[in-house]
């Protein structure tokens, strides 16, 4: 009985607090994406104006984001039926966008970021279920100053 109460509390907490936190995070991501829209970030290795580059340096940004209890449960259920695991899609999307934004914050005074690379790795908790609890995304590139 107590187990069931704990389980239901965790689901409710995960659902309400988790979706509130996600909504707030998405809002902050959108605001900062508009703020940094003037700093172009490309995956090409060739800069726009190769003649007059004053400075170049490596910049990076990384974030570790965890999934909430409710979504983890939904993902486990998905494993039975198959299909899109939407709860993990939003997790990875948030992590990638946040990592790129942090990289841009690191390159505040730059005019362009070239050769952007994204790397994702899972940090498994190695518990009895063996499910992936969180992902780490690293974004890095070369910041140029004209």
């Amino acid at each position, binding site marked *: 009985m107590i187990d069931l109460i704990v389980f239901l509390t*965790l689901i409710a*907490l*995960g659902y309400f*607090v*988790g979706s509130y*936190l*996600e909504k707030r*995070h998405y809002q902050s991501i959108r605001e900062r994406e508009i703020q940094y829209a003037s700093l172009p970030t490309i995956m090409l*290795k060739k*800069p726009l104006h*190769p003649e007059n*580059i*004053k400075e*170049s*340096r*490596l910049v*990076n940004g*990384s*974030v*570790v*984001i*965890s*999934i*909430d*209890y409710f*979504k*983890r449960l939904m993902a486990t259920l998905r494993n039975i039926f198959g299909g899109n695991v939407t709860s993990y899609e939003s*997790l990875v999307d948030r992590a990638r966008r*946040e990592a790129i934004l942090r990289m841009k914050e690191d390159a505040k005074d730059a005019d362009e970021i*070239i*050769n952007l*690379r994204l*790397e994702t*790795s*899972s*940090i*498994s*908790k*190695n518990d009895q279920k063996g499910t992936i*609890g*969180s992902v*780490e995304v*690293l974004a*890095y*590139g*070369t910041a*140029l100053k004209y």
Partner: protein
Amino acid sequence: MNITNIETIPGKTIVEHHGVVSGSTVRAKHVGRDIMAGFKNVFGGELKGYTELLAESREEAMQRMTEQAKSLGANAIVNVRFSTSSVAAGAAELYVYGTAVSVQ
């Protein structure tokens, strides 16, 4: 030390290659941070402790790579790549590698 992840240092010419340089750190998670992460696993959201831990470790790996490049007499590292792998339960290896060059 000039570090980029493209094949050149813009505005400079490469005059000498010194070969591959690399740096790595293997870090285990801290118990206190693990407990906090356990809480966060219920609510979801960023695990700040882990973000910091991995950023610090990566910084250290970069430091080791830079020292290696210095000892070879290089003044720049080009085409830098990062890689992460989990070697054991609760430990992650952060690896960074690139080509040490001399530029003018």
